[in-house]
């Protein structure tokens, strides 16, 4: 496992208090709770495990690839962005990712400005969240592995917090479930970092149809009802 350099940036990027708009996204938990699919801490454990292995892995792979690309200079951001589009079949999820990317650009411009960030935004308009995260990690002087770690962690930390807020779960139990994913998160970051140099089209593409369906259901069914989260 690599030693983390510039650890403060890594911790700040992973911190739920980072003002990038992440707190209004539940990653499917709001819909899962409304559908009765997640009601207990044990349900949450299963949900988070699945989310980390699918959406979390995809996010980690693209964050690591973006860090690698930003650090090495030669990259077609449009292609990398489009490849993540292709791996995100749900339009609602694509929109949630771009919305969070926009929020992270705003926070990142103040904290970790870089020419790569300017280029990414100029080329793609509203880049996907993992790409922004990867570019900020590079600007902060850290490695693809750390970017993957943060991306993977965020794929489960936000949803876990949303479950506590929506279901009134015991926060200690929910936190313990999250921390149980430690080994899985390390393996995921190792794999993502090892693949970061690949051409965008060759990056992995794990599917998660249940999350896709939850995201679409959230978007459609909640238009006329109360929605507390944007996704």
């Amino acid at each position, binding site marked *: 496992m690599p030693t983390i350099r510039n650890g403060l940036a890594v911790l700040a990027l992973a911190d739920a208090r980072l003002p990038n708009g992440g707190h*209004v996204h539940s990653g499917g938990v709001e819909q899962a709770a409304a559908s009765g699919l997640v009601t207990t801490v044990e349900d949450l454990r299963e949900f988070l495990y699945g989310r980390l292995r699918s959406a979390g892995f995809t996010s980690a792979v693209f964050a690591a690839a973006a860090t690698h690309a930003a650090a090495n200079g030669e990259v077609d951001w449009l292609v990398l962005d489009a490849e993540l589009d292709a791996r995100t079949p749900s339009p609602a999820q694509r929109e949630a990712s771009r919305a969070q990317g926009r*929020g992270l650009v705003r926070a990142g411009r103040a904290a970790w400005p870089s020419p790569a960030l300017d280029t990414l935004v100029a080329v793609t308009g509203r880049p996907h969240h993992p790409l922004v995260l990867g570019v900020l990690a590079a600007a902060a002087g850290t490695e693809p592995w750390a970017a993957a770690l943060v991306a993977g962690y965020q794929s489960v930390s936000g949803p876990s917090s*949303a479950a506590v807020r929506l279901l009134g779960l015991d926060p200690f139990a929910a936190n313990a479930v999250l921390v149980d994913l430690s080994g899985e998160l390390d393996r995921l970051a190792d794999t993502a970092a090892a693949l970061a140099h690949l051409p965008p089209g060759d990056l992995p593409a794990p599917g998660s149809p249940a999350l896709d369906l939850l995201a679409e259901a959230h978007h459609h069914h909640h238009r006329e009802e109360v929605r*507390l989260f944007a996704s």
Partner: protein
Amino acid sequence: MPPDGHHPHGHRHPVSFDPTVTDHDRHEPTPLPGRPFRLGIGGPVGSGKTALTAALCRALGPDVNLAVVTNDIYTTEDADFLRAAGVLDPDRVEAVQTGACPHTAIRDDITANLDAAERLQERHPDLELIIIESGGDNLTAVFSRGLADRQIFVVDVAGGDKVPRKGGPGVTTADLLVINKVDLAEHVGADMTVMVADAHRMRGDRPVTTQSLTRTPDAPDVAGWVRQQLAVPLGV
């Protein structure tokens, strides 16, 4: 230490560290040319934020180019409220989801609200005023100065005449405190004299307004205050 920052032992501090002094915020927002004025309206649940927002739209709408961001738990009922009141084109309303944390969305992480304000600006480039209505929250909820140029805190008589006395950043630091629904005072046994006196005591020289939208549906006092704020360039 007195509010002017003079220190007994011969030097002065730029700000007062005395928590009992309700000093004005000296870190005014930086003026941003070409950006509409952003007015925050906060306050507890049911105090009348949406009704005040609608009243301001009615009063100011004819001559101020305005739009609204609502953080209230948003259903079509809210949109219908503004639409039925005939005060605002639905195209000028943006709803924000706050992730069940209304104070976070206006204070700690204002991203979703800034995004909504920017969407309104993109659709209506000549906007002069964006009213940002917070979700109903508690007395500690205030707007970040990064989001709102000025903010109004709304409390209501029916919530109890002790509310101003309880203080909290909403009551003590908002640019205008509105005590709403004064027509209900006699029905809920609220002593308006005490309530207003408490409000002034907690706020120093900051303004306090009482109103009843039943009696004056266009909120003339608050609308007048907003016009004054709009007339002053940001940062002055």
